[in-house]
């Protein structure tokens, strides 16, 4: 129920009684409503669902999560390939 993708806020403006922004999803530009995230600034990453910014994306949290996985990769508990093969 939740197709939402992150994109970069490239402009913020008022239109038809709402605070809106233009979001750049890596080359695809779309307007989205910013009413629920008034603290957002140009350059922030917004998570957009159905034309609405439901939250901002924290790059630092993202990096922390990835670091957790890096550790796992490095610990590299090896299992024989057969166990991971499909079927």
């Amino acid at each position, binding site marked *: *129920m*939740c*197709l939402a*993708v992150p*994109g970069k806020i490239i402009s913020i403006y008022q239109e038809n009684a709402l605070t809106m922004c233009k979001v750049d*999803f*890596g*080359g*695809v*530009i*779309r*307007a989205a409503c910013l009413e629920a995230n008034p603290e957002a600034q140009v350059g922030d990453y917004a998570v*957009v*669902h*159905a*034309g609405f910014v439901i939250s901002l994306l924290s790059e630092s949290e993202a990096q922390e999560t990835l670091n957790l996985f890096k550790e796992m990769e490095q610990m590299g508990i090896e299992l024989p390939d057969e166990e991971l093969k*499909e079927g």
Partner: protein
Amino acid sequence: MTTSSLPHLEGPVCPMPLNHGDQIVMGDGSGGQMSQQLITNVFQSRLTSEALAANNDFGSVAFPNASQLKGRVVVSTDSHIVAPLVFPGGDIGKLAVCGTVNDVSMSGAVPLYLTAGFILEEGLPTRLLEQIVDSMRDAAQEAGVQFVAGDTKVVEKGKADGMFINTTGIGWLPEGTSIGGECAKPGDVVLVSGTLGDHGIAVLSARGELGFETEVQSDTAPLNGLIQAVLQAAPHTHVLRDPTRGGLATTLNEIAAQSKVAIHLDETAIPVNPVVRNACEFLGFDPLYIANEGKVIVIVPPNEAEAALAAMRHNHYGQNAARVGVVEATPAGLVLLKTIIGGTRVLNTLAGEILPRIC
């Protein structure tokens, strides 16, 4: 023609209507003088050939040394109804030429002649029609094909979405070529000539209903040159097909069913423009199901794969050509995709319309 305000009781009973030079009106499709003027001014000034100049209802054409060479005539027809009429990277005219040139070329035949049937909506600006026919002339020139017959009708406002175009193409297939959807064999290599999903996304963006902008261009292009180069380099090519509506996935399913083989694809190898990928993600589409109008799938025996790939990459329209999979015997009739994380997914034929989703 009189300028008096009183009706004339002599002469033509139906007065010559106003010269609506800047838009198409019902009279342009009537078959009379207005039609003739339209054909002369808009079509024949741009799409020229001996056959058309003869002004018959058919086009009489010659095949190269037909009595001496052995081979077959290949025919294909297609109707084009794209909206909007003009989109980034092309328009309905270019599409109408390239689509049919490509269909004929997929047999291995050299496309030679085209017909064009136009259904024009009342109110269509003539300038726009001229622009589109210009595109057709340019595309035909690039492909090296000629228009040899045509027809025009006009319908009332609201009945034709601007315009519809039908093109029929005729080509010559020399004897000894055996290429078709039923010819893929286990062990064959599956190649594609470039990035997938560009056309569908470009048109969707131009339509504006989903409110997104992008720089993606349609890949509409005539591929007969590229295909001839591939056939030179890989004379035992088994299958050629262009992944139009339904995309790569649907087209490969057709081939897998016809040839009774399985096709195994590697997701990491399939070329997709990152912007197209991003557009698909935000709408909930899969690029493997989006239409292409300037790409070809080439299935060749393994010993000819490198040569075919090189030939494509050497061509202007095949610079991003890639090897994307292999044909195997089982599971017959299925297309399987090894995903970027190493799992497996069955790629089915597209069920119905592609719809943007929120889920």
